[in-house]
């Protein structure tokens, strides 16, 4: 996984943000997932169709974090989503 990978959220996921945290239900596996606040921000950007590189740039801009740190955190989080089968790599 690198910042140039194209990823999209799996289709058909049920999701809601409750108390700042996103809850996702994957009907294929009947699994309920909970994201923390940072994960929720990243997934909301994925929902808007943003690519990984753009998400990293926005996080650096909005939260004044070091680029290196933001890149590491975003990629780590997206890899976690991939391992759980919640995102699809487009290529």
């Amino acid at each position, binding site marked *: 996984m690198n910042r140039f990978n194209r990823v999209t959220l799996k*289709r*058909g*996921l*049920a*999701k*809601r*943000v*409750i*108390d700042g945290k996103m*809850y996702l*239900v994957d*009907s*294929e596996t*009947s*699994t*309920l*997932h*909970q994201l923390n606040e940072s994960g929720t921000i990243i997934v909301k950007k994925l929902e808007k169709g943003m690519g990984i590189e753009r998400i990293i740039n926005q996080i650096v801009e909005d939260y004044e974090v070091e680029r290196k740190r933001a890149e590491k955190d975003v990629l780590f989080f997206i890899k976690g989503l991939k391992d759980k089968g919640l995102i699809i790599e487009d290529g």
Partner: protein
Amino acid sequence: MDECIAQKLEKISSQKRIPLSVDVELTYCCNLNCKHCYLQGRKVSGELATAELFRLFDELREMGTLYLTFTGGEPLLRPDFYNLADYAKESAFALVIFTNGTLITESEAFRIAECSPLAVHISLLGAEPETHDSITGVRGSFRKVIRAVKFLKRAGVRVVLKTALMKQNYTEYEGIVSICEQLEAEWQFDMVVSPTHWGGVRPLQYRLNQEQWKALLKDKRFFSPEKFSPTRPEALLCSAGLNLVAVTPLGEVYPCLAWPCSLGNVREKSFKDIWEDSPYLTHLRKTEISNVKECPSCPLLSYCPRCPGMAFLEEGDFRSPSRTNCQFAEAIGDSLQQARQYK
């Protein structure tokens, strides 16, 4: 489901008064005529139109509802069923469908799969075709249920077969479990038949008696003394009205499908206004365990599966004891004592 996350979500949604799970009866129409149906005597005209339901779903999405159940009647009888199911999917609800299964052909099963439901629950009322069909009042309905489950499984849909155990079918429960295992479907039994929503007692003639409950509770599939954990006083009240609610085909909002007390109608007020301002809900949410009559000091408390809705139906007050639940608690208590004696 991840238990821990589910519990956290349950807790936070109750505290924040988010209607996390909403059961929507799409129609009272049904192509079966089940003897034990709690909707006997229903009015089937003036049901919510597609646009009204879309508006309701929009509100629910805004308010944080995650789980949406389509039930009936038979929801697949609605000509706009797939419009509603597609809309629910687009609105990112986790959709559950309760159906009698008789209308699910192979193409319907694949169409249902496109709606990505979390599960489809189908009623199976006997292990023998004659038993099931005699309860539904329609010959051939058993065969159609089995066919529906096979089609849905082939389409990759999770299926739960639900059985209301009653006098006519309780001796067939082992056969029902075998059918579920063969079809790779999950099973769920309900041992208590309810009166109708309008106070009709006709279904109660089919309800199991205490001896029959006791006989079933000897089977570990229904009751495991090793896994038994005593009912905590907090459980005397439930999630209904806290994070769970139901809407009828006519737009009435109930605390839950088993608690038919109208809190308001979505045709007269927004769902949000009903949820936030209903005097009955305010009263319910302020109710503490100490306000529940008799139950907190009852010697059967540890065994009680108390349902405030059943208390409402029987006594007109959700704080009263439900005599049905009392009898069931006694049956559980007896089973537990017997299991301990034989240990």
